[in-house]
């Protein structure tokens, strides 16, 4: 299953400046692992040594922060979109 993933500016050097790339998987974890296969080095930017999503990275499935869903185990289905977004200061 192919899922589009939106890549934030700081990571686009790793995706040949592509804003949206395609990944495979049925959970967020699988999607991230698939990104790593196609764009080596991407995973360590998103996940820490314990394989957890880094403190300052927000991952969204469509419009929902995956921390409100099932974190890395959140299932993804055809037609979904994943976005990786850095945390932002207040306003």
């Amino acid at each position: 299953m192919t899922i589009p993933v939106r890549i934030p500016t700081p990571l686009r050097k790793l995706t040949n400046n592509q804003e949206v790339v395609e990944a495979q998987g049925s959970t967020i974890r699988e999607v991230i692992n698939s990104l790593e296969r196609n764009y080596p080095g991407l995973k360590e930017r998103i996940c820490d040594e314990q394989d957890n999503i880094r403190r300052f990275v927000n991952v969204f499935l469509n419009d929902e922060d995956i921390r409100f869903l099932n974190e890395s185990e959140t299932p993804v289905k055809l037609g979904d979109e994943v976005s990786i977004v850095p945390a932002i200061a207040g306003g």
Partner: protein
Amino acid sequence: MDKRPFFSHLRCRECGRRYPKEAVHVCEFDFGPLEAAYDYEAVGETVTREKILTRPRSMWRYRELLPIEHEPTVGLQVGFTPLIPARRLAQRLGVSELYIKNDTVNYPTLSFKDRVVSVALSRAKELGIDTVACASTGNLANSVAANAASAGLRSFVLIPADLEPSKILGSLVFGTNVIGIQGAYDQVNRLCAEVAGKYRWGFVNVNLRPYYAEGSKTMGFEIIEQLGWRLPRHTVVCMASGSLLTKIYKAFNEFSQLGLVEPGQFSIYGAQAAGCSPITTAVKNNTEVVRPVPKPHTIAKSLSIGTPADGYYAIRTMKETGGTAEDCTDPEIIEAIKLLAETEGIFAETAGGVTVACATKLIESGRIPRNESIVLCITGHGLKTQEAIVDQVGKARLIRPNLKEFETLVEHALQTS
């Protein structure tokens, strides 16, 4: 321009990697926030109390500790708001030494946000940016709109569509582009992060964040100077993203390190509304993991950030300084707004009510001792959130233009007051 720059580079708060002084805000390696770093040796050789005292009474009197390269160009009159000895409020709360840092009268848009915006826009101009923007819960939008107007910059402000009407009007009047997003602040934020990656704009709290955030330090510098070059023992600050709290800590440390104030113990406390208290909840649960609040619900809309970017650092700051966090309900916020108004003549917005209400709880529970110096940071003016208290402050009494009616009314008023 001085030969040796005071502001040297940007640095990742997590891994310490260095970045150039551009419009970038997160580390490419771990997404840690980038922060301005200074050549403190150079600053120390230049800055003295005497020198600061000769300068105009604005936040720019501390310019060596702000991340710009040339003289400031935006917001030259911002800051140096009053620090008020709050004797009547102190009496009501049963404490001996209480001060209000009164940013309700900050220039030009009546909130502490003018501090951060004047730094962000001064830096934006240095970087050759002609369009500035922000994600905002209201106050930041007002400040970006006003300061961009006076600086001749084009601006876009993105806000949750359900903000207080006075805060929306307070942006529109400056001729900015106000974009109401049908969603919570965190959704506005996310959209801004995506927009910022697409356009070459200066988003004050996205790609200009390292510059923006440093402006908050000036509130801390001013508190020290206005206390007679002394650190307050206890400081209470409201928290949305938690950034202001961490920057007051940085300010106290920088002045201590530079010898501008006698180093000493100080504690910083954070205040949130119960309807959106992700940072306070983490502190109360004794964890550094901030659980986001999906749907904030409180009259303190300016603090309604469910995913606070600086929550982690705010928690560590409170812990390290021996402070803690508290929260309060909407009715407690309203009571606190009225208490501050009736005792000190200061009309604070809902966020100020949060600070006063939480400070009251911290004092009453003994966590802040009654016999040491306390500063409450009041960050925005009540005229901006009138909707929140409109039914809670009574009504004007109406009479005909007739002395007899007036006398009857006064007699009645004197009896009941």
